[in-house]
């Protein structure tokens, strides 16, 4: 609604300007220079940079920004329930979408769209089985590091994974993952899903697209201190940081037989009292819509933190805490200019940190100093993607 109204205002402003041009006096008109006819061209984007970022904007699009300049590079269609991903080589954007013939009912179609990252032209659409629908859940879809496969979480409501061959442009199979959800890709050869009993299901996908499923014993308490669905990953190393609501971090090397590290705790690593599951225990805790980001080059974990009791895991954060994931120590605390619901970080040696408010703003910061370089106020949603080149 707000968007429609805004564009109508813009159209009206242009019409008014046109009218005043026509109503000028004859002498004023004579003094005007002869205008050259405009040549329209189609702009193309330069090679993808690590400093680009792609926040969800409004409820119908993702907008591509250059983080260095805070300027818009382009727009991709994608609503609240779509999933976007950058191809690892930076040449393609993928957006998984679901539509109904009559808007909110009628025959349903699910498909994966591929856009050329240079021209933003829609180059391919791949039909999909019904995928899981959730508002802005980045972990619903991911790609293999070699760019060959896309993995999409299904919940029909039987749970499974759709394996898509991106080179051939077609779905190769559905793999059942009973009681397990979401996609955490390995370094190569498959993905894992989080299960409702606190375990992981591991789906190995070989070069032909054949799948083999294995299972590990439960390692977290799914009923009393579950891990965030938004737990961050290092795609290049195939490592997931499964983080519980109280801030316990299980560093997990993903694979057919994952290795799950001894947990460390965000609050304790910061020298703070350990956050418990107490409903009256006020402590520093992670929370938000996209509360974590992992920076591969520096091996640092960024967590959006707030003071609250247990079960405030969706609350906005007012600080970002940065951890050394090798030493399990707090490196710095970054106070935010406003409460934020999501964070993201670039994957290069001089990272930019993005913090998103629930009310349309994004702060682009120098990740090392926490200095705010730009503030963008443009209907930014609670999540953003960064390329991992």
């Amino acid at each position, binding site marked *: 609604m707000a968007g429609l109204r805004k564009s109508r205002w813009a159209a009206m402003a242009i019409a008014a300007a046109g009218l005043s041009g026509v109503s000028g006096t004859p002498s004023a008109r004579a003094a005007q220079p002869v205008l050259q006819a405009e040549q329209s061209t189609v702009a193309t984007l330069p090679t993808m940079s690590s400093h680009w970022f792609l926040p969800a904007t409004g409820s119908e699009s993702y907008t591509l920004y250059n983080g260095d300049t805070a300027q818009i590079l382009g727009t991709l269609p994608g609503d609240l329930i779509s999933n976007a991903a950058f191809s690892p080589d930076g040449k393609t954007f993928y957006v998984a979408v679901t539509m109904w013939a009559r808007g909110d009912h009628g025959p349903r179609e699910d498909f994966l769209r591929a856009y050329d990252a240079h021209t933003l032209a829609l180059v391919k659409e791949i039909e999909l089985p019904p995928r899981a629908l959730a508002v802005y859940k980045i972990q619903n879809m991911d790609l293999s590091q070699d760019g060959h496969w896309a993995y999409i979480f299904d919940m*029909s409501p039987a749970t499974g994974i759709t394996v898509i061959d991106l080179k051939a442009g077609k779905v190769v199979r559905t793999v059942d993952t009973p*009681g*397990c959800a979401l996609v955490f890709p390995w370094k190569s050869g498959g993905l894992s899903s989080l299960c409702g009993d606190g375990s992981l299901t591991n789906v190995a996908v070989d070069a032909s697209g054949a799948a083999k*499923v294995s299972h590990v014993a439960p390692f977290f308490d799914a009923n009393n201190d579950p891990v965030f669905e938004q737990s961050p990953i290092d795609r290049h190393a195939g490592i997931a940081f499964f983080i519980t609501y109280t801030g316990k971090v299980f560093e997990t090397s993903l694979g057919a037989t994952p290795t799950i590290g001894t947990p460390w705790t965000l609050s304790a690593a910061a020298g703070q009292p350990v956050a418990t599951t107490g409903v009256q225990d006020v402590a520093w805790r992670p929370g938000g819509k996209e509360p974590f980001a992992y920076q591969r080059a520096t091996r640092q974990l960024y967590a959006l933190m707030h003071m609250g009791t247990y079960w405030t895991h969706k609350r906005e954060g007012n600080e970002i805490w940065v951890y050394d994931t090798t030493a399990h120590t707090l490196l710095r605390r970054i106070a935010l200019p406003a409460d934020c619901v999501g964070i993201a970080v670039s994957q290069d040696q001089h990272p930019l940190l993005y913090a998103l408010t629930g009310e349309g703003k994004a702060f682009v910061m120098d990740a090392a100093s926490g200095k705010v370089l730009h503030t963008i106020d443009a209907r930014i949603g609670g999540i953003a993607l960064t390329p991992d080149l």
Partner: protein
Amino acid sequence: MRARGVVQGVCALVLLAASAFHAARAEAPRPTLPVLTHAPANYLLGCGGCHGIGGMSRQGTVPDLRGQAGYFLCTDSGRRYVLRLPNVAFANLTTPQLTELMNYVMFTLGAGSAPKGARPFTEAEVEAARHEPFGAVSLQAYRADVVRDVTTACPQAAALTDYGAALATREVRNTP
């Protein structure tokens, strides 16, 4: 948030009670509100979202339980199948609560479908099965096998095949 929801709920109840009291003095006494016993309440909270409040949901998307769930008691593999389903085994309920719930699903919700003389689930049976939830299996293929045996033992259970057939049209080469 949760706490506030509860507080608002309590306020609403107090208001209701107050107005009921008021009305009771003015008019004839009202019938008392229905009180759900444990099993139907646990069903509504943990299962009804998918299976529908009366055990019927979107056909072909979620299997019907009404007048149908008890068919699985026709075979030993059917008995174990329903207890090993992740939504059942992982339910945030104690084993006695889950046993009561599953017997409600089989014999009350599924009324008319359990074969004559079918034994109710015991706590020991539920406890053992919920520790072996389905994991690394194709649940679609597993269910198809179970349903084949069940419909052989109890031909009246033929409707159980509908869900599997509908699922097969959506999934792609989902083989073990």
